[in-house]
Structure formats: C-alpha cells, structure tokens
C-alpha cells in the first residue's frame, strides 16, 4: 500500500479552493511574511532552489534574499541563529530539509530553544518555528526517511505539530508563529503532493487539540501526519466490514491532547495507535501508556500499536513498504482490538511480525 491517499480533503463545495499540501504550506508562509515583517525564512536551499521539496518556490522573488535566506549547510548554526534572532524579537521560520538532518542541530533545539525559557527563570522565550520533512514512503532509504518527531515530542519546552490535512498545512503556521515558545512543524514527505480543495470555510485552526477526522463507535484509530490517510483508509475498509472506527488526528504531538484521545477511547473502549516511528519508546508507546494510566477501566482490549518495523528504513520498495505501517496492518489491529477474526485476505497474519502486536 503505497498509493497516496487523498482523503484528507473535506467535502467538496463549489467555492472550495483547489490546492496541494505544498501550496498550502507556501501560502501560509507567504501570508506570514506579508503580515509580519519580523518573519523571515531561513534554511538550506529555501531561496534560489525554491526549497528541497519546492515548498518555498517563488518566495525569494517576492520577499528578497534578506527574508528568504539561503543558509550554508550548517544546521546547528542556522537553527541556532534562528533561536538568537527569535530572542532578539524576530519571528524566524527555519526549514531543515529532513528530520534526519535536524540531528545536526539537536544541540540548539534541545539545549537552547527548548531550555532557555526555563533556564533563565522565564526571561527568555524563544518564538521560533522550525519546519522539517519527516517520514518514509519515497524510497529515500535510511538517512532521509525516519520519523523522529517522537524524540522531539519528548522534550519539554517544545510544541510539536504534525499537520496532516490541507487545512492544517495552510493554517497551522500562523498560530505556531504566534506562540511565544519554539514550535516544530513536521511535514510528512508523502503529503506534499496531496491535492484537494481547501474548504471555503477553512480558517484559523487551534494548535492545542487533536481532531476527530471520522467519528466511529467501535474502535479509535489514533494517528497523525503521514499515517492519517492510512488510518482513514483503514476506517473505510473497516466500515465495509461492519466495524465503525473513529479516526483521531493527533495534530499536536506535544503537548498531547489527552482529552480528545481519552474521550474517544472512553466511548469506543478500544484503541489502535498508528505511528510511523519505531515501536520502542515511540509516541505510540506514550499514548498507549497514557491510555492505560487514564483510561484503564475503559479499555475492553489491549491497546494495539501499528508502528514501523525496528529497522533503518530500507531502500527497496518491497522492503520499505513492509517496514511501514500500512492500511492492512491497521485493519488487522482494529480487528484484534474489536475481537473479531481478521478477515482472510487482509493479510493480517503476514503483517503481524512487522506491524502487529507481536512485532
């Protein structure tokens, strides 16, 4: 299952605006650059190249090289410079090509951005936004494909966002920039080409809450980012088998919205967490633990997790597919949670070692 699922868009209305995730992101930046002169974009190849994934294409022409800054390949320096600029009153948007590269700036993100406010006793908020691509699915192999957002979600002092819909891609940036503290935005690489109509009424979104993307009653599929389309597809499959799955889009990975997730599970009594991170020590593990802490007596089945196999993401297509959470694996996990046999053909047994409970 590597097909791109395009269910992220809401219902079509005549006045809807056709867009892609990439364009929505760019539009968000354009709006921010236009409306606040403190905002600038900095990163590798964000200017003349137009962004590694083309997100900032055309912005240099509109805003000039001072505000659309091509940075040397010095993740630590330009992320740290973003932090310093934020301290001095700017509102930088720093783009890191992929989450794997962000490790070169981890010192700045953790030891400075996330820490300065507390370490200074509240004197130094860091209003920076750091965007980066995450996730696999494009055969980019082990140094461009990992999903390390869970690591960042581990860090107090950061807000971690994972826009998964066109609306969120378009409207999460503004509240992120308005946040006085550092915000990391993880854009799943498989979403950039997702196209659809931006609902006419789409507007400012909040970055505090998860969203119920599809209501259901039997099991909660908890996903985010690149896994959301897969969870929605799985919910569709499950519906045809008579299982009503509720799909929760976490949206904000830190701080986690326990209430929305918990309310859902308190109703469905079963949870499947879909997370492209590795299972061990993952966000999925965190959510599972919280459900056990807060909703133990609501659970009618063990919490299921569908995560990536514990392997550096391989290049070969078949291997990469097998390493990632897929719709079939989610369907199989939901069936286990609901306590019904996995339908034959769902390939559940085969998937299990990779994405299933025993993996």
């Amino acid at each position, binding site marked *: 299952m590597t097909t791109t699922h395009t269910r992220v868009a809401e219902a079509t209305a005549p006045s809807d605006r056709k867009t892609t995730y990439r364009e929505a992101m760019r539009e968000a930046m354009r709006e921010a650059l236009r409306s606040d002169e403190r905002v*600038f974009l900095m990163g590798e190849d964000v200017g003349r190249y137009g962004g590694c994934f083309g997100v900032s294409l055309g912005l240099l022409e509109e805003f000039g090289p*001072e*505000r659309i800054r091509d*940075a*040397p390949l*010095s993740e*630590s*320096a*330009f*992320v*740290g*410079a*973003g*932090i*310093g*600029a*934020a*301290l*001095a*009153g*700017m509102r*930088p948007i720093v783009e890191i090509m992929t989450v794997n590269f962000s490790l070169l700036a981890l*010192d*700045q993100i953790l*030891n*400075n951005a996330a820490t*300065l*406010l*507390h*370490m*200074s*006793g*509240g*004197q*130094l*908020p860091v209003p920076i936004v750091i965007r980066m691509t995450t996730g696999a699915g494009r055969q980019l192999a082990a140094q461009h494909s990992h999903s390390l957002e869970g690591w960042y979600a581990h860090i*107090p*002092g950061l*807000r971690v966002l994972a826009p998964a819909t066109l609306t969120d891609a378009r409207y999460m940036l*503004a*509240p992120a920039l*308005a*946040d*006085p*503290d550092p915000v990391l935005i993880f854009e799943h690489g498989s979403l950039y080409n997702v196209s659809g109509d931006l609902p006419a009424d789409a*507007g*400012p*979104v*909040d*970055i*505090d809450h998860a969203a119920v993307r599809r209501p259901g009653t039997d099991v909660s599929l908890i996903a985010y980012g690149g896994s959301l389309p897969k969870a929605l597809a799985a919910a569709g499959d499950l519906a045809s088998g008579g299982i009503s799955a509720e799909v929760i889009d976490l949206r904000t990975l830190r701080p986690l919205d326990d209430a929305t997730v918990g309310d859902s599970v308190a109703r469905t009594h079963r949870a499947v967490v879909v997370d492209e991170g590795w299972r061990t020590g993952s966000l999925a593990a965190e959510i599972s633990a919280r459900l056990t802490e807060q909703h133990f007596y609501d659970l009618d089945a063990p919490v299921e997790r569908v995560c990536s196999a514990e392997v550096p993401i391989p290049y070969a297509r078949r291997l990469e597919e097998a390493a990632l959470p897929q719709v079939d694996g989610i369907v199989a996990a939901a069936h286990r949670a609901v306590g019904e046999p996995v339908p034959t053909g769902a390939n559940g047994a085969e998937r299990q070692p990779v994405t299933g409970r025993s993996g």
Partner: protein
Amino acid sequence: MTTTRSPRAPRPAARPNRQDAHRLALLESMLRVRRFEERCVQLYSAARIRGFMHLYIGEEAVAVGVNEALTDDDAVVSTYREHGHALARGVPAEAIMAEMFGKVTGCSRGRGGSMHLFDAGRRFYGGNAIVGGGLPLAAGLALADRMTGQGRVTCCFFGDGAFAEGEFHETANLAALWQLPLLLVCENNLYAMGTALARHQAQTDLALRAAAYGMVSWAVDGMDVFAVEDAARRAAEGVRAGTGPHFLEMRTYRFRAHSMYDSDRYRDKAEIEHWKERDPVEGLARRLRDAKELSDKARTTLEDRLAAEIDAAVEAAEQAPEEPVEDLLKYVTSPVEVTRP
C-alpha cells in the same frame, strides 16, 4: 593563508585618555569579580553552593576590558565560566549569589545555577554550558540586529575548547558570510578542561585560523586589562561600522581548577606560578600604587566596600525564599497565553 604570523592588535597609537577614575573603575570591577569568586569558593566548600562551579580567577581582565567596549544596548552571550562576564555586565552580585544558592531571587530564579546566569534586561544571554553552544545563538542575535538595521554589537565569549566544535566553525562561516555584527571573543586559557591547547588543536594560533574565515581577527594579551579594552574598543567599532564580525583571541590563564577543585595533574605548578606573576588584578593594583593613583588606605577602603557588598549579597541570598515546589513546571512554556483564533 600562507602567513604563519598571527595578526596582532596594533599598539594603539591613540590610547583613549585614561583618567585615574577609569583606571580605578577597571580595578574595582576586576576586584569585584575576584573577591566575589573567592567568596564562592568558601561557600562552595561549606556546601552553600552546589553543582558545577567554574571560576574565572585569573581571567578577570578579559570580561572587564571587553565590557568597556560595549554599550547597554549591546548583547553578551557567555559560557559556563561566566561570573566575571555577568558581574562586569552589571548583573548585581546579589542576584548572582542568590542564583547559586538556588533562590527565587536569583537572576534565573534558581533554575540555572552557576552555569546559567541570565539577565534579559541587561541583554546578558547567559550562561551556556554546551561548549560552542552559544555561538549560533549569538549569530542569530546579530542577524536580528542586522535585519532590523540596529547598530548594536553582539559579543560572544567562548573558550579555546570551542575551536574544536563544529558550532564555532559553522558560526564563524555564517557570520562572515552574512557580515553579521558579531564580536567573537575567544578566551584562550590554554586548556580545554584538562587538555592543553596543543593537545586538542592542530594549529594553536587561533586568531590566525579565525582570520581564515575572512574576519578581522587579533590576538590580545588577556592579562592586561588595558590591552583588552583597547582591542575590544577597536573591534567593536569595526563591528558597529558594518565591517562584519571581528575575532579577538584573548590569551589568558585561569589560576584555579577547571571546576572548583581538580588535581591539576594536567599542568605544572610552575606554569601556574608563572602566570600568577602576571595576575591582571594585582598587576593593575601595583601599577596604580606605583603611579600614586591608589593609596593603601584607598585600597583598604575599596576592599572593605567590596567585602560589604559581597557580604550583603550572601546575606540576601541566605535570607531569600526558594521557589515553591508547586512552581516547578513554571517557565517550561511561556505563561502568557497567546491569543489564538
């Protein structure tokens, strides 16, 4: 770069007109740092101060001299050996002492300790305990100044150890590339913790290497507060004039251990004694006495005043309340809720 001679700060032809009062002020500033830290040693030994504490004793001329070149609008980014920088910058001794006592009146509300002194009002961006970690930050502060057209200087202190860090080289490149108004002050005290410069740098002429990034860079006698002040003034002027980042290698020495106590097995006692002969504080005091600018009585008065100031700081720190545990999670994120749609 083919030259092997490192660039040196030219002997200032036109020294600033140093008034007696200014010289005495420099002495007082250095003495404050010295006496403050000596008291810290006592308090640390009495377990009133805990954690890591890195003393600046021996290097006072650098902080005090550089600060002479900075205005209140400029910014300072420092290291974990930053009591001197903070005091020279004007952070009150009481706030620093309270911080080391872990009290709520501390300059970081007891959350930072010795290594993390902050004073946003004085644009003192602290106490960074990751070697080299403050450099990118300083570049960012400078970037903001450049983008907003403010004629401010961001001064970043770091040690010779940072020369081995990528963050120094990334920042030097970025700052030179973008011509940022950044004053890089390397406090070369010859040791990265216990590793001598020659044992951690292939080329020990640090100013030379900084020059390779295309910035103005000088090596300076860091034991002479006048030399430091002169170099810093020139460099700051250059930065303010928009000629990009400037680099100063301050050749200095710490008289005490890396952190409070160590065995000093990595350096000779004789070496320490040799450097102590060039003690910047006593050296200046001697010069002033010889020039009849500082009488013994005046020295005593000054010492008494500083002792009283430090006593008061300790007393206030002792009396100050601690942050209530209920406020543990304060300042993890900003308390001010932004208006969200």
